[in-house]
């Protein structure tokens, strides 16, 4: 009896494994943290959610906004503080419920609630109201021209499902109870959840009632998603044919993967810039050997340090060509970026002259804090910078550590020289200014570890939020950038390049947000 049961179970497992050819076995370094679409504002979590849930507006694989659950949207003609969204009709959730305006209202309110991790993106929203079943109005506290850009990762849950399963509240970590929505999912997306073991394996199957069956390739019928943390193991799994598609291929293995029969590598610039921050605001800093003065407060020193960094060498050797040297801390996708500002040159002699002029001809020594598990080759980049800065007399002690120890140093102001990477999900400079340039305070400047404070600039940054005249707004953005560049507020290194490795059966281009959406994949 028991033996029969076991046998049956074994048979079941083997047949399940040998399913159809359109299965996409997908691996990346980290798993989604939760299935609750509003609990975490984090890349891998959103990427998995995008297969199951949908936002009103989605970014396609090139990063361009595309209609998803909303078919069109525009500011109201009567009131500049209102955006009107027309919803797609005939859309059904995986459990068969209809998608309507009340789900939008429910989802936005849920995403604005205290435990939500998405609420900062929705700060300007005062109210969401239904005009009819398939029209909603977003009321903002002032004109908000970039509101749609904030909604591309805001997923729509079914109100009825959430209420029936006691998942109205966003997961509260200290609440003691886990929510149903963290381990179950009911979206409108192209794939349905079959099973999930966090950190181990997640299986999704195609949603045959998907509204976009004819609008997208929809070649993938099943997704098996397995996180593989160790880079060498991940590459090995692709090389040995155990997975079909991996994200985060280490740059040194791109050659090997590309040369292997049946495998291809695709790359594209990522929406993320890597740079160093310097504490210029303090009178004296703790992590250097200069007493009673702060060498970083002198713009000549900051310029000299920037000139000492050979970005081309980093690109060529450390990144194996997989980066784009940067002169400003905005990725090229971002409104406000300009090619002219995004230039940086290396000139050791000029840098030495600047150091001498600033009174540091003999250099100084300082500690560089660097993460070692966050960005592509983060530690190796810092190490290369140590060598380059040594050439102008700046002795750098490198302290590389896991991200969980690194980032608190920046937000708590405990580091004077640090590496940081910044992605811009809204594709607009305001996002960069708010977090990295504005004086550190309650609402803004939380990631500004430079100690830089410029009230004029702060006023300009704040004005961007409500400026509806786009030309005027862009002019202000340009003015702010000019100051940022003049002050050498940060020390830009490069724009990251993304790469995906896959079997040649998979047809897809890399998206700048590193978020593969499997409905766009073709399979041969």
């Amino acid at each position, binding site marked *: 009896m028991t033996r029969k049961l076991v046998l049956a179970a074994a048979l079941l497992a083997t047949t399940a494994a040998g399913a159809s050819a359109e299965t996409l076995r997908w691996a990346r370094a980290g798993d989604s943290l939760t299935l609750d679409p509003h609990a975490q504002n984090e890349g891998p979590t959103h990427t998995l959610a995008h297969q199951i849930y949908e936002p009103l507006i989605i970014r396609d694989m090139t990063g361009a906004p595309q209609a998803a659950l909303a078919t069109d949207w525009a500011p109201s003609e009567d009131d500049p503080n209102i955006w009107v969204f027309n919803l797609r009709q005939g859309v059904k959730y995986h459990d068969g419920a209809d998608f309507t305006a009340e789900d939008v209202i429910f989802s936005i309110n849920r995403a604005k609630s205290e435990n939500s991790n998405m609420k900062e993106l929705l700060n300007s929203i005062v109210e969401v109201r239904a005009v009819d079943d398939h029209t909603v109005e977003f009321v903002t506290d002032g004109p908000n021209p970039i509101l749609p850009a904030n909604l591309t990762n805001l997923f729509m849950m079914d109100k009825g499902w959430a209420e029936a399963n006691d998942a109205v509240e966003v997961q509260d970590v200290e609440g003691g109870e886990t929510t149903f929505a963290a381990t179950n999912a009911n979206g409108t997306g192209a794939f349905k959840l079959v099973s999930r073991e966090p950190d181990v394996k997640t299986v999704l199957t195609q949603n045959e009632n998907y509204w976009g069956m004819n609008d997208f390739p929809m070649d993938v019928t099943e997704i098996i998603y397995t996180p593989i943390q160790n*880079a*060498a193991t991940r*590459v*090995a799994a692709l*090389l040995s044919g155990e997975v079909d598609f991996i994200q985060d291929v*280490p740059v*040194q*293995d791109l*050659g*090997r993967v590309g040369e292997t029969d049946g495998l291809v590598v695709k790359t594209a610039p990522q929406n993320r810039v890597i740079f160093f921050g310097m504490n210029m605001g303090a009178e004296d800093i*703790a*992590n*250097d*050997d200069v007493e009673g003065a702060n060498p970083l407060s002198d713009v000549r020193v900051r310029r000299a340090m920037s000139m000492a960094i*050979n970005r081309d*060498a*980093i690109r*060529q*050797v*450390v990144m194996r060509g997989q980066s784009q040297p940067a002169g400003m801390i905005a990725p090229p996708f971002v409104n406000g970026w300009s090619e002219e500002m995004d230039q940086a040159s290396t000139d050791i002699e000029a840098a030495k002259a600047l150091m001498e002029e600033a009174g540091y001809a003999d250099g100084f*020594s300082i*500690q560089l804090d660097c993460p*070692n*598990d966050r960005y592509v080759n983060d*530690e*190796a980049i810092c*190490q*290369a910078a*140590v*060598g*380059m800065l*040594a*050439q102008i007399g700046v002795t*750098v*002690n*490198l*302290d*590389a*550590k*896991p991200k969980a120890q690194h980032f608190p140093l920046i937000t708590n102001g405990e580091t004077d020289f640090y590496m940081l990477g910044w992605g811009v999900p809204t594709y607009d400079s305001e996002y960069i200014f708010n977090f990295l340039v504005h004086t550190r305070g309650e609402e803004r400047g939380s990631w500004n570890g430079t100690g830089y404070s410029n009230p004029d600039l702060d006023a300009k940054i704040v004005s961007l939020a409500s400026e509806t005249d786009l030309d005027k707004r862009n002019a202000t953005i340009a003015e702010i950038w000019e100051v940022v560049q003049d002050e050498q507020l940060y020390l830009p290194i490069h724009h990251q390049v993304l790469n995906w490795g896959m079997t040649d059966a998979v047809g897809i281009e890399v998206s700048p947000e590193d978020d593969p959406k499997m409905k766009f994949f073709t399979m041969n």
Partner: protein
Amino acid sequence: MTDAPMTPEKAPRPSRLKRAWESDFMWSFRHAPVAVVSFAVVTVLVLAAVFAPLIAPHNPFDPGTLNLMNGFTPPGVPNQFTSDTFLMGTDDQGRDVFSTILYGMRISLFVGFAAVFLAMLIGITLGLLAGYVGGWTESIIMRVADVQLTFPAILVAMLIFGIAKGITPPEYRDQMAIWVLILAIGLSDWVQFARVVRGTTLVEKNKEYVQAARLIGRSPFAIMLKHILPNVLNPVLVIATISLALAIIAEATLSFLGVGAPPTKPSLGTLIRIGQEFMFSGEWWILFFPAMTLLALALSINLLGDWLRDALNPRLR
């Protein structure tokens, strides 16, 4: 017991060196080719590490002398940009692998020796105390040993790492990692010394000669040091040798988990951790040479320890 038997001499006494050379211990050493070769390998590697600044063509710990464009130069082939040639090639930062290995071995050996010394010191002291004094002292020491066993070395390392980071001034943080490694490995390794010493002490303290020493009023300290300690030296020597190999490997393992020597001043373990990233990409030399060095070092020490165990065990002669 390892000394040459003292026989009443008629012929002139041979010199100390000659006597040592002809001792049983040395006799069995000379007749064990594996032991001789291992000893030679360890000696060469240790000397190479000690005199690294004289031997190494470059100083890999001086970042100012590195040229990033030299990165990934294969062994013996001129670099395409700089035309520099390196015996064992260069790593991802343009460091000469040969020089880096020599300097890295210094760190690995230093960490290994210091950690074993620390473990020995703690282990022997606590083992003697536990065995000789007994009672609550013994209970507490052996329970502490239990706690110690519970904590894998990586956790101990992380704990000490974190605390050390908080209390060391920034300018010393560079060297801190090495002391943290020594402390972590030493602290996680003392238990076996303590257990062996305690066991031997329990046996020895009831023997007549110890009882006699106690009766004539020798202090417990003197008894432990003069009478009991010599009896534990053989097993301690064996454990210490094996521990040395283990400590060097442990250092490598810790660096894989991110709690190792910093990449700017790498140990052999850090070099292997970095090198394994280039295993699939064809730059085999970045992993191969450090790994072979570590293998040669640890294997030789292990083989020596192996031979030592047999040689010092009179029943196996």
